[in-house]
C-alpha cells in the first residue's frame, strides 16, 4: 500500500503495466518492484531448485528473488530481469518465471517435499544406475527443471551500441560519497565521469529520512546535481553500471539506454562503454546482509534497508503489520521510520540484551527469530525470548544483518578483500596489496557499512584524502567543498 505524503514518485503521472496478465498501476519513478509492493503483491518468484515461493527481498540491483521476464510486443523476451531495477512505463508487460502452470500453483514445488534427498551435491552420488538412464532419462529431466527464465526463440533484431569515453577521474556511484567526490574533483577542474547504476542519483539518501546541510536528503542531492550538471568538465551517466576494472585504466560500463521506456527502433537498448580513466573512486556504498534462520525466504521477509527504501523513495510499504529483526541499530531506525509513517510495528526482535527501548513499538530484547509461517506470504514470526517461544503477527519481517561494503571492483585484478573484525565486514584491499586495481581508491562510505550515510559526516577529511589521492597526478590544486554535516 502507498503511504500518503512519502516518496519521490510523481503521483500526478500514473503508469499502467501488466504483471502475469494482471493490470497494475504505479507512478512515474516506480520500479516494477516498488509498484508491486505498493499493490500488495508479495509473491513474485520461485526459487531455483525447490521452487519455494519467493518475494521481493531488496530495493536495488542485488535482488536475488524478484526475477521476471519482460515481454515485448513483437514476441521478444528478456529473461531474468530484476524487478527492483526495471522501471515501469505504460504498456510494460512482465511475467514471473520458472513455475508451472502458475506462480501461485507451481507443481515443481514438489521438489521442496523431497529436499532431504536433494541435498547439496546429491547428483554426484546418484543418477548412475543403470548407466544408460543418465543420458536417456535423468539428465533430460534435470535440464528441463533447471534454468530460470526463457529465451523467446526469436532472433533479436533490436539495436545495441558501443561507445568510448575518457576522463581524468571516474567516480563510481552517485550516493553522498560519490557526489562529493565528483564535486570536489569537478571544482578542481578535472574531467570527471560520474557513473550511477540507478536511474536517479542520491544512493541511500533517497532511501533514508536524513537531512544534509539542513536540507532533506533528496533536496541536497538536487542541489549538488545542479552544480555538477552546470560543469562542462563533469559528465553524469545514469543507469550505467561499471561492470569491470581492466588493465591500462580501462573500465567496462553497461548503460541501460532504452530499457525504461517502450522499445523504439532507433533507440539502442543498451550501450557497452569502454571508459578510460587513470584514476577512479569507488563510492558504491554497501549492501545490507540478510539474517539466517529457518524459512527466512518466505515472501514478506525483506531487508530492513529495502523496507526503508520502499517507504522513503517510493512511498510504499509491503504490509500492514511489520516486525523487525536485527542486532543492529538499523533495525530500530526502520521501526521508527515505519511508526512515523503510521505503519504498525508489531515487534523489534533484537538479540542484544541491552537493546534500546522502542518509542511507539515494542522491543523484544535478547530475543531471536527462529522460524516463520505463511507459505505464499508471511503471516507470523516465531520468536524465542529466554525460555519462552511465541508467535508475533507480521505480514512483513524486516531483517537488518549489518552491511557489506561493495568491494567487488577492488578485487577484479586478483586482490582479496580484507576481513575487519571491528567493521564486521570485508573491506577493500589496500592500494599496495598484490593484485590491487591501479588508480582505484575506495571512498569512505564504502569502507564502513555500519552507517553508510553518517560516516561521511564523521570523517570528511577521509573524503578529502581519498579525492586528493585519486587526483594526485593532476596539475590542479584541490579546492574541496566546505565540510558538510548530516
Amino acid at each position: 500500500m502507498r503511504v500518503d505524503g512519502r516518496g519521490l514518485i510523481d503521483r500526478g503521472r500514473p503508469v499502467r503495466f501488466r504483471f502475469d496478465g494482471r493490470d497494475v498501476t504505479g507512478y512515474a519513478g516506480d520500479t516494477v518492484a516498488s509498484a508491486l509492493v505498493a499493490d500488495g503483491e508479495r509473491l513474485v518468484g520461485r526459487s531455483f531448485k525447490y521452487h519455494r515461493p519467493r518475494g521481493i527481498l531488496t530495493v536495488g540491483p542485488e535482488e536475488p528473488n524478484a526475477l521476471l521476464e519482460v515481454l515485448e510486443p513483437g514476441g521478444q523476451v528478456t529473461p531474468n530481469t530484476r524487478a527492483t531495477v526495471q522501471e515501469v512505463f505504460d504498456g510494460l508487460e512482465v511475467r514471473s518465471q520458472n513455475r508451472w502452470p502458475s506462480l501461485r500453483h507451481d507443481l515443481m514445488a514438489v521438489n521442496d517435499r523431497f529436499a532431504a534427498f536433494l541435498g547439496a551435491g546429491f547428483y554426484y552420488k546418484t543418477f548412475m544406475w543403470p548407466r544408460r538412464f543418465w543420458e536417456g532419462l535423468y539428465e533430460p529431466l534435470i535440464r528441463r527443471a533447471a534454468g530460470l527464465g526463457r529465451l523467446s526463440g526469436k532472433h533479436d533484431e533490436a539495436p545495441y551500441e558501443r561507445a568510448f569515453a575518457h576522463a581524468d577521474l571516474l567516480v563510481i556511484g552517485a550516493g553522498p560519497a560519490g557526489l562529493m567526490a565528483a564535486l570536489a574533483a569537478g571544482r578542481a577542474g578535472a574531467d570527471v565521469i560520474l557513473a550511477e547504476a540507478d536511474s536517479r542519483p542520491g544512493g541511500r539518501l533517497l532511501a533514508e529520512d536524513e537531512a544534509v546541510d539542513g536540507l532533506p536528503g533528496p533536496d541536497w542531492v538536487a542541489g549538488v546535481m545542479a552544480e555538477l550538471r552546470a560543469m562542462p568538465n563533469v559528465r553524469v551517466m545514469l543507469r550505467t553500471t561499471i561492470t569491470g576494472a581492466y588493465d591500462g585504466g580501462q573500465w567496462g560500463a553497461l548503460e541501460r539506454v532504452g530499457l525504461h521506456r517502450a522499445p523504439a527502433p532507433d533507440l539502442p537498448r543498451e550501450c557497452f562503454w569502454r571508459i578510460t580513466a587513470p584514476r577512479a573512486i569507488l563510492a558504491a556504498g554497501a549492501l545490507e546482509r540478510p539474517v539466517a534462520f529457518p524459512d527466512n525466504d518466505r515472501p514478506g521477509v525483506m531487508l530492513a534497508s529495502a523496507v526503508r527504501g520502499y517507504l522513503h523513495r517510493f512511498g510504499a510499504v509491503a504490509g500492514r503489520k511489520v516486525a523487525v529483526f536485527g542486532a543492529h541499530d538499523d533495525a530500530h531506525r526502520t521501526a521508527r521510520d515505519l511508526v512515523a509513517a503510521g505503519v504498525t510495528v508489531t515487534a523489534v526482535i533484537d538479540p542484544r540484551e541491552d537493546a534500546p527501548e522502542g518509542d511507539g513499538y515494542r522491543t523484544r530484547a535478547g530475543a531471536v527469530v527462529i522460524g516463520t509461517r505463511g507459505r505464499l506470504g508471511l503471516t507470523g514470526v516465531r520468536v524465542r525470548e529466554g525460555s519462552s517461544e511465541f508467535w508475533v503477527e507480521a505480514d512483513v519481517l524486516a531483517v537488518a544483518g549489518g552491511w557489506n561494503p561493495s568491494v567487488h571492483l577492488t578485487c577484479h585484478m586478483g586482490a582479496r578483500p580484507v576481513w575487519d573484525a571491528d567493521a564486521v565486514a570485508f573491506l577493500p584491499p589496500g592500494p599496495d596489496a598484490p593484485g590491487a586495481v591501479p588508480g582505484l581508491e575506495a571512498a569512505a562510505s564504502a569502507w564502513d557499512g555500519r552507517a553508510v550515510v553518517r560516516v561521511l559526516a564523521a570523517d570528511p577529511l577521509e573524503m578529502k584524502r581519498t579525492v586528493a589521492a585519486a587526483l594526485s597526478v593532476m596539475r590542479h590544486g584541490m579546492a574541496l567543498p566546505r565540510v558538510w554535516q548530516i
Partner: protein
Amino acid sequence: MRMSHSALALVRGALTGHTGWPRTWDSPLPRDRYKVIVVGAGGHGLATAYYLGRNHGITDVAVLEKGWLGGGNTGRNTTIIRSNYLQDASSAIYEKSRALYEGLSQELNYNVMFSPRGVMMLAQTEHEVRGYLRTARANYLQGVETRFITPEEVQKRVPIIRLDGPRYPVLGALWQPRAGTARHDAVAWGYARACSAMGMHILENCEVTGVRSDAGRVSGVETTRGAIGCERLAIVVAGHSGRLAQMAGFRLPVESVTLQALVSEPVKPCMDVVVMANTVHGYLSQSDKGEMVIGGGADGFNNFTQRGSWHHIEETVRALVETFPMLSRLKMLRQWGGVVDMTGDRSPILSPTPLGGCYINCGWGTGGFKAIPGSGWAMAEMVANEAPGPLAAPFGLERFREGRFIDESVAAGVAH
C-alpha cells in the same frame, strides 16, 4: 574408509540429516618419501595418479597442489569433450580419453555427468568447409565417428542459430555425435576420491618450490610444507609447466597465455548440443543448470594473470550474437581466465625429460579438459614403465628438435 554411493546410501543420508558422509578425499600429513610424486592436483594430475594405481598397482603416490584441488584450468574450462582431431596420434589419445569418459561415472562411483549430446564445429567459410571435410575423412580412417552435416541439419539441431549471418553464413558443420561435456569439478573430485581410497596422499596448499636431484636423477621436491623425497616425479601443472621445468633444470617449448571464458545467467533449455564457431570465434554450450557457457580466445601476449579482459568480452560476445542473435537478451554473470601452456604445433607434450625419473605432461593448450582420462592413462603408463607407451610416444619433447610436429592448429579450435 569410502562409503559407496548408492540409492540406499542416499536414503540413509536423507534420514540422518546427511551427517554421516565421509570426506570425499582425505587430508593427510605429508610423508618423508613416496615412490611417485605428481605435481598438480588438477584433472590430469589426479588421473595420472589414479591410473598409476588402477593399471599399474602403484599406490605409494602423493599428488601435490599449490592451491586447492581442481582450482586451476580444471575449474576454469568450458567442459567440452571431443576427439575430432586431424592427425592419427591426436585422435588416438583424444578418442581413448573420450571412450574412458563414457564409463567414468560408473568406474569412479561418482557421477561426472558425462553428457554426449554432440559437438558441432561450424564451417562459416569455404576454407572451413574443405578443412572439416578433410577432418571427417581422416576421422573415418581413424575409427572416430564424425561426419560433415548440412546447414539444414545444423538448424534442426540448434534452433537458436542464424544460418544466414550477415558476414559468415553457416555452410555446414563437422558433427561428432558422441562428443559433449562433463561436469568439470566432478571429474577432479571423482578422481581424487578414488585416489584417496587407494591410500594415495592428496596434499593441497603444498606448493613445489624446488626439485632435488642426485647424479642426474630426481630425488625429491622442496615444498611449502617441507622437503619430500621421491623415486619418480610427474610434472602435470599446465600453465606453470615452464616454471617447474626451470626448477628441474630444463627448458620447454611452451608459452603461457590466458584463455578466457564467460557464463550467462541460467535459462530454460534452448540449445542441446555444443557449438564451436571458430571463424567468428566463440564456442558455447548450455550447462545442465541452464547457463550458457561461452569460450573466448587466448590473450595475444604471454601472461599468468588468470583473469578476463574487456576486449575478450566484446569480441566473443559480438561473435556469438552474430550467429546466435537471441543471446543478446542474456546477462553475463562471470568472466574468468585460466593460464594455458601452448606448444608450437598445438599438440601436447608427454615426455621423459633430461632429468632422470622426471616426466612431464603439459602443452594441452586450450583443450586439456577433454583429454584428462587419456592423458592420465598415458602418463601413468610412462611413469610406471619409465618409458612412453604407444599413446604417449608421438608426443615426446624430441619432436621439436627433430621437426616431427603433430600439427593440430585447426582442430585445436581456439585461434592462437
